[in-house]
């Protein structure tokens, strides 16, 4: 006589589980049922609060009729893969999970390798359940937000102890399964996690389980949340809005318990405005750079990309031959910016510094007419003092902005050798500020294959007197002589 004979034919075995998430209890019962040879379709699994309770009341006060396994029953087989999946799948809120797992365990006895058949519908369903639970676990690790409660009771040291409390709404029966994670992470902190299905309390040494809670049991805010929201808003890059990617990983259902989520609608709405503002502030729709000197000349007159362009002045274009047919020697001379007289004349190097330059060029045997002469910055930067306009050095940012035009001129003229006079010109060619005294006297290779020579600006000589002027003028001459020699060499 088997233990099952007291059940009416066609009736079902009711199996009650005390907890919805107790894998070990399910495993105990399933083992006995398999050994007792109870087929899956004859079992009704009942979890607390589940719809399975209907059977319990119909069948009379929920008695359990677990079979007694025969002494010689073979051991129940379950491989590691099954146990791994089942442990997670059992936490799913789907009421069918116990039956599904039992059916699989049942089939596993006859077909031990069934777990490998990923195309089997039962296997796929269990994998789905386990995956949903793993995701829920992961989201709990990520989205629980603790809030600080200063509790009145002092600890041994007499200090008020800090208690961190979180409210979280998991989708599946995962609270207990994740106690270990939070304990390992916050081992020396007093914390509680409250959920609609139960609560966990850790006091730094022992974990307690508590009854279900309500949102109102957790604190409503934390002073740190302002900083956290500030961080959240600042780390967001409005130039790369990807709302879909965010929603996929952080669905709306979690938002209500995350302090930073309140900012999301405004951040999205502001992103387009902000990006437009960023592009404007960065100045810039130089979509295509003009490809002829005439076009650059026209464009620089309209250029307002930096504040200098907005002053009362005129753009001054470089001048000189642009290729060998026009007598170009291969030399490009770059100064700083037009001065008062250049601005009025509309031509580079016609003022006092220009005249000084001409004298030194002549001395070195360099024909200015064969060189292309231009400036790092195309507009005159000044401050008005009474009737006169006082020269101001262009800023690094202004030089960098205007570099666009200089590079346009270089692309057309294609010099073999560039002579940069002064720190501003050197920056316009190198992208960084260098010391003239260190950089002068030796060529530097530029990206396009041309050579850069750096020297002082002639206006620097104008500001010096006596011995200093003589010394510097000699250095200037030496630089020009070296340039002349090198140019001859390059063109030979």
């Amino acid at each position, binding site marked *: 006589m088997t233990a099952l004979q007291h059940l009416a034919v066609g009736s079902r075995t009711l199996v009650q589980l005390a907890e919805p998430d107790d894998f070990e209890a399910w495993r105990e019962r399933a083992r006995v049922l398999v050994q007792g040879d109870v087929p899956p379709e004859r079992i009704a699994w009942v979890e607390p609060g589940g719809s399975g309770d209907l059977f319990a009341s119909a069948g009379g006060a929920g008695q359990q009729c677990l079979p007694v396994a025969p002494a010689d029953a073979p051991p129940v087989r379950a491989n590691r893969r099954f146990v791994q999946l089942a442990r997670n799948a059992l936490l799913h809120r789907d009421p069918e999970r116990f039956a599904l797992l039992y059916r699989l365990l049942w089939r596993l006895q006859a077909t031990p390798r069934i777990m490998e058949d990923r195309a089997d519908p039962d296997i796929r369903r269990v994998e789905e359940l386990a995956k949903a639970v793993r995701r829920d676990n992961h989201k709990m690790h990520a989205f629980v937000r603790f809030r600080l409660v200063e509790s009145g009771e002092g600890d041994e040291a007499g200090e008020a102890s800090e208690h961190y409390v979180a409210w979280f709404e998991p989708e599946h029966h995962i609270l207990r399964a994740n106690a270990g994670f939070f304990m*390992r992470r916050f081992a020396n902190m007093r914390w509680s996690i409250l959920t609609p299905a139960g609560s966990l309390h850790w006091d730094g040494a022992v974990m307690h389980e508590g009854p279900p809670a309500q949102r109102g049991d957790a604190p409503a805010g934390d002073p740190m949340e302002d900083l956290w929201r500030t961080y959240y808003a600042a780390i967001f890059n409005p130039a790369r809005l990807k709302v879909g990617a965010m929603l996929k990983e952080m669905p709306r259902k979690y938002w209500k318990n995350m302090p930073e989520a309140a900012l999301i609608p405004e951040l999205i709405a502001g992103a387009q405005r902000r990006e437009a503002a960023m592009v404007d502030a960065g100045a810039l729709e130089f979509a295509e750079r003009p490809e002829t000197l005439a076009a650059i000349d026209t464009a620089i007159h309209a250029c307002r990309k930096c504040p200098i362009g907005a002053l009362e002045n005129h753009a001054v274009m470089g001048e000189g031959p642009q290729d060998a047919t026009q007598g170009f020697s291969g030399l490009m001379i770059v100064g700083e910016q037009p001065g008062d007289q250049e601005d009025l004349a509309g031509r580079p190097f016609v003022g006092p510094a220009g005249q000084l330059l001409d004298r030194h060029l002549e001395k070195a045997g360099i024909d200015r007419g064969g060189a292309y002469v231009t400036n790092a910055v195309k507009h005159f930067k000044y401050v008005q003092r009474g009737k006169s306009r006082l020269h101001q050095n262009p800023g690094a940012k202004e030089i960098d902005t205007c570099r666009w035009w200089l590079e346009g001129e270089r692309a057309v003229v294609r010099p073999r050798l560039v002579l940069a006079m002064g720190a501003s010109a050197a920056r316009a060619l190198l992208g960084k500020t260098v010391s003239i005294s260190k950089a002068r006297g030796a060529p530097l290779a530029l990206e396009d294959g041309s050579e850069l020579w750096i020297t002082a600006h002639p206006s620097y000589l104008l500001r010096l007197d006596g011995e200093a002027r003589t010394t510097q003028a000699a250095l200037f001459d030496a630089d020009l002589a070296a340039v002349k020699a090198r140019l001859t060499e390059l063109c030979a």
Partner: protein
Amino acid sequence: MASQTPLEKLAILADAAKYDASCASSGTAKKDSLGGKGLGSTERMGICHAYAPDGRCISLLKILLTNHCIFDCHYCINRKSSNVRRARFTPQEVVDLTLAFYRRNYIEGLFLSSGIVKSSNHTMEQIVEVARILRVEHDFRGYIHLKTIPEADAELAHQAGLYADRVSINVELPTDAGLTRLAPDKNARQIEGAMGKVKADLVEAKDARKRFRHAPRFAPAGQSTQMIVGADKASDADIVAKASRLYDNFGLRRVYYSAFSPIPDASAVLPLSRPPLIREHRLYQSDWLMRFYGYKPAEVMQATDADGNLPLDIDPKLAWALKFRENFPLDVNRASREQLLRVPGLGVKAVNRIVASRRHRTLRLDDVAKLTVSIAKVRPFICTVDWRPVTLTDRADLRALLAPRREQLELFAA
């Protein structure tokens, strides 16, 4: 400056840090706070504690110690000649913020970088000091990622590795010429030299732990780097070549790509429009092909167009398969795992499932459909007992059939 509140400083220094793409907190040594005095744990998986509307994960408190900088790199919002607001945290302020965020479960740990103030060594000392206070004074066992400065002393970089889970040095630009042009104060040799030193330290520490159980760990999550895409003229082929060289030479865990974003106060040597974000995505896909799908760098480069760039409308794996159609269709019941990994639409998981399932049954098209995300994408490239794509692979318009319909790829595409 003194009047800045912590809120203002955080806003400035987090804003300044957002151009670093990395936010990973995975792949480090397992640790927890049981038996310790402080808090924190790291387990196998990284955790993303929030997502910003740019779709990026927020796992770490990613900030700069300061955005003052003596360098003048054109693509960088914090460069010396930029007009951004500046702020500076003390190491203690960063420590307090990290711990306060960590206790509330906002973050996995800290990602600390910095502009260069005074000198490279001074800055590196400050960065290391933050990590020291966290690890030594507070017994913090969460994740720490430190950006190390290639110009600083090797000894400081070594200390950083002893406290941090991961260290990284940005190569910034895919070509040396790009670096010279856009980051005139940086030097490619120096950057690679520093990465080489970190690799040597990693190897040595690993070796020591084999012999002595208590030998100190050195950056258990390894080193990574970042390249900016679209700020110079480098093609995708250049970038892939550079990345694979970096993986080979320096044992990197990851190469991150960051599509150049127009930054406030940009300088004129930069392109003004940003490259399409999808380009960055395609580069990551090619990175995946090399790391997980067994493609060689040269094979990824075969998928590029004539100009050396990966197609934007289809993924690189599909592009490769369309170019080398003679390899397809593959019989899912017979083809090797390596071959199946080349089928567009089959990921590593799907291939594993197919290989496991076919021991038990001969797969039909329906079965494959159950194991993959989209059978429509896979179908032209496979055979099953009941399916053979007779005409599909020969069709000239196959690409048009498989490419996603032309849609707006970005919300604000220019």
